[in-house]
C-alpha cells in the first residue's frame, strides 16, 4: 500500500565506503547465503550464522580470528569468499573483524545511542528574567533569552490590522471580513486581542484550517493513486473527523489514540441494531473509530498488489511510515530495506512496528441501524431490475455488432457508431430510459465507513530483505524501537492499543515535542525544529531547545489542548512582532532562523483559492460531506486517465466550497492548487513549499476561476460609489484601507477599466497572497 519514498536497495550497502558490517554482509553475501542458503548457510540473522551451514558455525562472537566468516573474507585459507574476482576491501574486512570482536550484533551500531536530544524526555527549563519589559509571557522570556544569546533583539510589534489579518489567516485560512476589520479596529478595550483569538478559535473555520494542516501530515487523499486509482468513497469521513477533532479541541493524546486504536481502547461491537436510528452509544463509539480510517486511505498500487502477503506488506509499511512521520516525527522509511544509515532505527525495529498492525485490517462497515440496512435490501429488487435492463441492452448491442461484423461491404470501425435500424434505435432508447428510471427508483446505498477491525487471523510478520515482500527473513513480534522509551506488554489481540498507549505515554519524549513544533510552524511559518517530520539525526536541531521543551511540557500540563497552545503562542509578544526587517538583526540572522521577527508567508494553495472566494462573497461555508468535484476545462483535464473518475458535483453552489472539501485525487492534482504547491499525497508532507513560478501568475491573471470570481465580487459591490467600491474591495482582499495614492491609482484604473478588472487586479497583488 505504501508509495512512500523508501529505498529499493541498500544505499548503505551499495554506496562505496560502507561502514557497518550488517550492511556489508547484506550487499556481498546474502545473494547466495540469504533465502538461497547456499551450503545450507543462512546469513540473514545472527542466530542463523551461529547455527551455520555445512561447514559449521560462521561466527564466534567476540573472536574474529576463530570465525569462519572472517577467515573466508580474508581469503587466507581454503574457503575464499565472496567467490570470484571481487574480494572485500581491506577496510570492509577490518569492519567485519571489529564487528565480530564486538559481539556481532546485527542491530546497527547507532542502536545504542539513545542519548540523542529528541529521545530524552523534555524538561521544563528555568524561566529567565526579561529586563527589557518586552515579554508578555514565559514563552517570550525564553525566546528573548535565546535571541540575546545570538545578539538579536525582538522586532517591534505589528500594527493592529496586520495582526488581525495574520490571526485570521493563521486560524481560519481566510481573510478577515470588512465587519471584523471595523469591529476589531474600534475595540480598544483591554482584552480585545484575547477576545479576537477566542472568537476565531470558536468558529468551525478553525477546524477546516488546522484539519487541513493535519491532512498534509497524514498524506490524506480520496483515491489510492496509480493506474487503478481506487476511489475511497469514505475517505471524507476521516477528513471530517480530523476537522471535527480540532474544532472540539479534542486532547491531542486522545486524538492520536483514536486514530491508532480507537476500536481496541474503546471497544464496542459493530453488530447491527436499532430501528431507524443508531443507538447513541454506538454513534459515539463510531465517531472515535472513524479515526482509524487514517490507515485506510494510503497510496495503493491495486493493479500489481496481487498476493495477500504482498498487499499486507505494503499496507503495513504505509502504516509504519505514516505512524512514524505523523505521531513520532521520525522517518522510518529507510529502515524498511536496511538498518537506518543515520538514525538508530535498525531494520528489525521497522518490522517490529509493522507487527503491531498484523492483527488488523481495513473493513467497510455499515454505520446505520439494523433497520437502515433493511430499508436498502428490501428494495434491492429495483437494482436488479436495472441490471436486467442493462443486460438486455447489451444483448441488443451485441446482436447489432455481430451483424455489422459480418457485413463485408460496410466494414465496421472498432470505434465507430453501431448501425442500428430505426426499430433497434427506438428499442435502445426505450431501454436507456427504463434503465434510468430503474436506477432513479433504486434505494440509496446505506452509509458505511472504512475502519480498522481485528483481522480474521494473526498474520506473521517477518523482516523483509531489502523490503521485498517475498524475501522473508527472521519472524518478529511487535516491539517498540529500542532506542526510545520502554513500552508496556503487548496483548496478542490488542496490539494497536499497546502501540497507541506507548506513543501517548507520559514518558514518550517525542509526542508533545513534535506536535507543539507543528503548532509553532502553523503560526510562524517554520518550526523551532525546521524539519517537523524528522527529529532524528538527519533532521535540523531545534533553534531554541529550552523553549521547545517548555512548550512540550506545557502542552502536556494543559491536557494536550491544542487550542490552549494557540492561545499561549498568539498571546505572546513574539507572535505579535512585525515581519519587517531590522537591520542589526538582519546582519546576524538574515533568514530569521531564531525568530527575531514574524516570518512573512505566502498563502498555501487552499488559502489562495479560499481567499478569492471569500473576497468575492461567493464562498459556500457548508461543512463536511463527500468530496466536492469542481469542473475543469478540457485544457486543465488533459493528462487525466479517465474523465469518468472526475465526477463533477452537479450543484454549482458546491463548487465554491472551501478547498479542504475538494476531491484529492492521487493521480491528478487540481491545477489551480498544484500551481501553488499543494503537496503530493504520496507521502506525509511536513511543511508546504512556497515556490514562485510563472504558472501562478497565469492562473491568477487568466483562469476562468479568477475571472468568474472577479465578476462576482464586482457584482456584489454594485450600487456603491466608486470610492466606496475601491474601499470595500481593499478591505475584502488586503484587510486594510487604501492610502491616498493607492486610492487615486485605483479610481483611475476603475474609471478606464471595469470594476471587474479591478477586482481581478487585487487577486494578483503580492499583498493578497502574502501575510505579514
Amino acid at each position, binding site marked *: 500500500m505504501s508509495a512512500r519514498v523508501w*529505498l529499493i536497495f541498500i544505499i548503505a550497502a551499495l554506496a562505496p565506503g560502507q561502514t557497518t558490517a550488517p550492511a556489508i554482509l547484506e550487499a556481498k553475501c546474502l545473494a547466495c547465503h540469504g533465502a538461497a542458503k547456499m551450503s545450507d548457510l543462512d546469513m540473514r540473522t545472527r542466530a542463523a550464522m551461529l547455527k551455520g551451514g555445512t561447514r559449521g558455525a560462521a561466527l564466534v562472537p567476540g573472536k574474529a580470528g576463530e570465525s569462519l566468516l572472517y577467515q573466508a573474507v580474508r581469503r587466507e585459507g581454503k574457503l575464499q569468499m565472496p567467490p570470484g574476482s571481487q574480494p572485500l576491501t581491506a577496510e570492509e574486512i577490518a569492519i567485519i573483524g571489529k564487528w565480530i570482536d564486538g559481539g556481532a550484533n546485527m542491530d546497527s551500531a547507532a542502536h545504542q545511542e539513545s542519548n540523542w536530544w529528541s529521545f530524552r524526555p523534555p524538561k521544563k527549563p528555568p524561566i529567565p528574567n526579561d529586563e527589557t519589559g518586552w515579554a508578555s509571557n514565559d514563552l517570550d522570556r525564553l525566546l528573548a533569552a535565546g535571541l540575546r544569546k545570538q545578539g538579536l533583539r525582538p522586532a517591534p510589534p505589528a500594527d493592529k490590522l496586520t495582526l488581525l489579518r495574520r490571526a485570521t489567516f493563521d486560524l481560519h485560512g481566510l481573510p478577515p471580513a470588512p465587519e471584523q476589520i471595523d469591529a476589531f479596529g474600534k475595540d480598544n478595550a483591554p482584552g480585545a486581542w484575547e477576545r479576537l483569538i477566542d472568537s476565531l478559535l470558536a468558529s468551525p473555520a478553525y477546524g477546516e484550517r488546522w484539519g487541513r494542516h493535519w491532512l498534509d501530515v497524514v498524506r490524506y487523499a480520496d483515491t489510492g493513486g496509480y493506474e487503478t486509482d481506487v476511489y475511497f468513497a469514505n475517505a471524507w469521513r476521516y477528513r471530517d473527523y480530523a476537522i471535527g477533532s480540532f474544532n472540539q479541541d479534542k486532547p491531542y493524546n486522545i486524538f492520536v489514540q483514536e486514530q491508532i486504536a480507537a476500536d481496541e481502547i474503546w471497544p464496542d461491537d459493530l453488530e447491527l441494531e436499532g430501528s431507524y436510528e443508531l443507538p447513541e452509544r454506538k454513534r459515539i463509539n463510531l465517531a472515535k473509530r472513524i479515526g482509524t480510517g487514517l490507515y485506510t486511505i494510503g497510496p495503493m498500487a491495486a493493479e500489481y498488489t496481487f498476493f495477500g502477503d504482498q498487499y499486507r506488506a505494503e499496507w503495513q509499511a504505509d502504516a509504519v511510515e505514516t505512524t512514524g512521520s505523523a505521531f513520532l516525527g521520525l522517518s522510518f522509511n529507510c529502515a524498511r530495506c536496511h538498518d537506518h544509515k543515520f538514525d538508530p532505527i535498525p531494520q528489525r525495529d521497522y518490522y517490529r512496528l509493522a507487527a503491531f498492525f498484523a492483527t488488523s485490517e481495513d473493513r467497510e462497515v455499515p454505520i446505520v441501524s439494523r433497520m437502515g440496512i433493511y430499508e436498502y435490501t428490501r428494495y434491492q429488487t429495483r437494482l436488479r431490475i436495472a441490471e436486467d435492463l442493462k443486460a438486455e441492452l447489451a444483448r441488443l448491442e451485441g446482436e447489432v455488432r455481430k451483424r455489422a461484423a459480418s457485413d463485408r461491404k460496410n466494414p465496421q470501425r472498432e470505434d465507430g457508431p453501431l448501425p442500428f435500424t430505426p426499430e433497434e434505435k427506438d428499442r435502445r432508447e426505450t431501454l436507456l430510459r427504463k434503465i434510468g428510471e430503474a436506477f432513479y427508483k433504486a434505494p440509496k446505498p446505506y452509509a458505511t465507513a472504512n475502519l480498522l477491525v481485528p483481522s480474521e487471523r494473526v498474520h506473521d510478520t517477518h523482516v523483509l530483505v531489502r523490503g521485498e515482500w517475498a524475501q522473508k527473513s527472521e519472524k518478529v513480534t511487535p516491539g517498540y524501537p529500542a532506542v526510545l522509551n520502554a513500552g508496556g506488554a503487548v496483548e496478542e489481540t490488542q496490539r494497536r492499543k499497546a502501540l497507541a498507549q506507548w506513543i501517548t505515554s507520559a514518558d514518550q519524549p517525542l509526542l508533545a515535542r513534535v506536535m507543539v513544533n507543528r503548532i509553532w510552524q502553523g503560526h510562524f511559518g517554520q518550526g523551532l525544529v525546521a524539519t517537523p517530520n524528522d527529529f532524528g539525526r538527519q533532521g535540523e536541531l531545534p533553534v531554541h531547545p529550552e523553549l521547545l521543551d517548555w512548550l512540550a511540557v506545557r502542552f502536556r500540563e494543559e491536557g494536550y489542548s491544542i487550542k490552549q497552545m494557540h492561545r499561549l503562542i498568539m498571546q505572546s509578544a513574539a507572535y505579535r512582532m512585525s515581519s519587517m526587517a531590522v537591520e542589526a538583526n538582519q546582519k546576524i540572522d538574515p533568514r530569521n532562523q531564531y525568530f527575531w521577527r514574524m516570518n512573512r508567508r505566502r498563502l498555501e494553495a487552499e488559502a489562495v483559492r479560499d481567499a478569492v472566494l471569500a473576497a468575492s462573497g461567493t464562498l459556500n461555508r457548508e461543512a463536511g460531506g463527500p468530496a466536492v468535484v469542481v469542473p475543469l476545462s478540457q485544457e486543465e483535464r488533459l493528462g487525466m486517465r479517465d474523465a469518468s473518475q472526475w465526477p463533477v458535483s452537479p450543484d454549482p453552489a458546491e463548487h465554491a466550497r472551501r478547498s479542504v472539501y475538494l476531491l484529492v485525487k492521487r493521480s491528478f492534482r487540481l491545477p489551480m492548487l498544484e500551481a501553488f504547491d499543494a503537496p503530493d499525497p504520496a507521502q506525509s508532507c511536513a511543511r508546504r513549499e512556497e515556490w514562485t513560478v510563472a504558472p501562478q501568475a497565469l492562473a491568477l491573471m487568466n483562469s476562468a476561476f479568477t475571472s468568474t470570481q472577479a465578476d462576482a465580487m464586482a457584482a456584489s459591490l454594485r450600487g456603491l460609489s466608486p470610492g466606496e467600491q475601491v474601499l470595500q474591495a481593499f478591505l475584502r482582499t488586503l484587510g486594510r484601507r487604501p492610502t491616498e495614492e493607492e486610492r487615486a491609482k485605483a479610481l483611475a484604473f476603475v474609471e478606464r477599466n471595469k470594476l471587474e478588472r479591478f477586482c481581478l487586479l487585487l487577486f494578483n497583488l503580492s499583498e493578497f497572497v502574502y501575510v505579514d
Partner: protein
Amino acid sequence: MSIDLNSRRAFLKGSGLGFGWMALQSLQAAARPAKRVIFLFMHGGPSHIETFDPKPLLNKLHGQPVPESFGDVQLQFSKFRESPILGCKRSFARHGKSGHEISDLFPHTARHADKLAVIRSMHHDGFTHTAALNWLNNGWPRLGRPSLGSWIVYGLGSESDSLPAFVVLLEGGIKSGPPVYSSGFLPAKYQGTVLRNGPAPVLNARRPVAMTEAEQRELFDTARWFNERHMEPRSDDTALAARIASYELAFRMQMAAPELADLSKETAATRALYGIDVEGTSDFGSRCLLARRLVERGVRFVQVWSGSTTGTSDWDGHKQCDTNHVQIAARVDKPVAGLLADLESRGLLKDTLVIWGGEFGRTPTSDGGMNGGGDSLGRDHNPYGFSIWMAGGGVRGGQLIGRTDEIGLRAVEHPVHVHDLHASILHMMGLDHEKLTYSFQGRDFRLTDVHGSTELARKLT
C-alpha cells in the same frame, strides 16, 4: 556532492524563474554533445517483436507452449507458462549501411536507419503500466519521485526566457496520470508543462476573451505598480521581487505561446515532411513539429506522447496486437522520420538527443484475454526485454546494442536497466548521475537511486 541545502533553498526561493541558473558550480555540467532531449514516448508499450527485434522462431513455434527452457515470468494478465507462443506477421528488412533490421511498420523511419542506435536489451521489472511508466519516467516504480525531465532541467536549467524548460506534448490521458512528468519532491518549477495542440498551448496563457492586449498590459502594469509599492519596505524579501519577475515571464510566455503554436508559418515542404496535412499523421505530426519549434527556442526537454487513454488508442496491444500496431505505427512513422530529417537539416540533430520507446515491450506469448480486454492475437506486457532507439545528440548511429533471447522474452546480452539508460542520458548531457542529488526527508536522492551505469553512454557516443 555537498551543496548547502539552506543557501540553495534560499537561492531557489528567491530566484523565482531563474533560467539557466541551476548550473551551480558544484554541479557544473561537463561539455557534452547533447544539449536537449526529445523523448518520443509510445504509450501502452510497443511490441519489440513487431518493430525492432525480429524473432523468426516465434513463427515456427506459433500456437505451441513456450519451451521449458525459458522458465517462467510474472505477467499482469496472462499466465506465461499456460500461454501459447504467438507468431509475428510483420516482415523485416535490413536498412541502411548499418543493416538495422526494422519491420515494415516503419518504412519512413527505416530510411534513417543509420542515425539510429537500437537497444534491444532494455529491461526492468514493472509489468503494469503504472510501475513501468514510473520506471521509464521517474526511475522508480512508485509514486513520488521526480521525472527524468525534471532532473535534467534541475541540473541544466533552461535556455529560454519565455518558455518552460520541460514541456510535455500529450495526445490525451495517461494511464497513470500526470505523476510521470511531475517534479516529485523537486521544486514545482521543474515540473513538466503540458502544451496542447492548437492556438492556446500553455494552460491559462491566454488572456480572458473580453480583454484586449492593451487592457491586459495595463492590468499587468498596474499590478506591478502596487506590487512594487508593497515590496519597497520589504526589500529584503527576495521572494517578492521574484514574484514581480514571474509576472513578466508569464506575460512573455503568453505572448510567445501563440507564435510558438502557429504551425501555419512553416513551409509546405516542412509540413509535408511531418505529414501534417494528412489525416492519419496530422495529430502526432503537429506535436513532432511543435517539439522541433520548442527545442529551437531553447526548451531543454520535450516529451511527445503517442497514444492515450482518451484518444483513439495506444500501443497496448492486448487485443489484435498486429492490427493495433499497424494502425498506430502509421500515425507516428512519417512524423518521426520527418522530425529526424528536419532536425538534421537545421543542424539541430547533432546536439538534440532523440529517444523513441515505450514503458515496456510485449510478450512472445498470446495474451489470451484473461482480463477481458485481450484476445488470442494480443500480447501481454513484457518489461523483461524490450527495444528502444536513440539518435542525435552525439549518438553514433547504426549501432545495435544488446540482444534478447530467441523468443524475445528476456534481455540476455548487454542488458540495459532503466537506471543505466537514465545514467547514460544524464551523462550524455554532461550530468553525473551520482552527483545530481536533491536532499529530501533526510536523504540525498538521485534519479538512479543507488544504481546505474554509464557504460551505455560510452557505447553510444
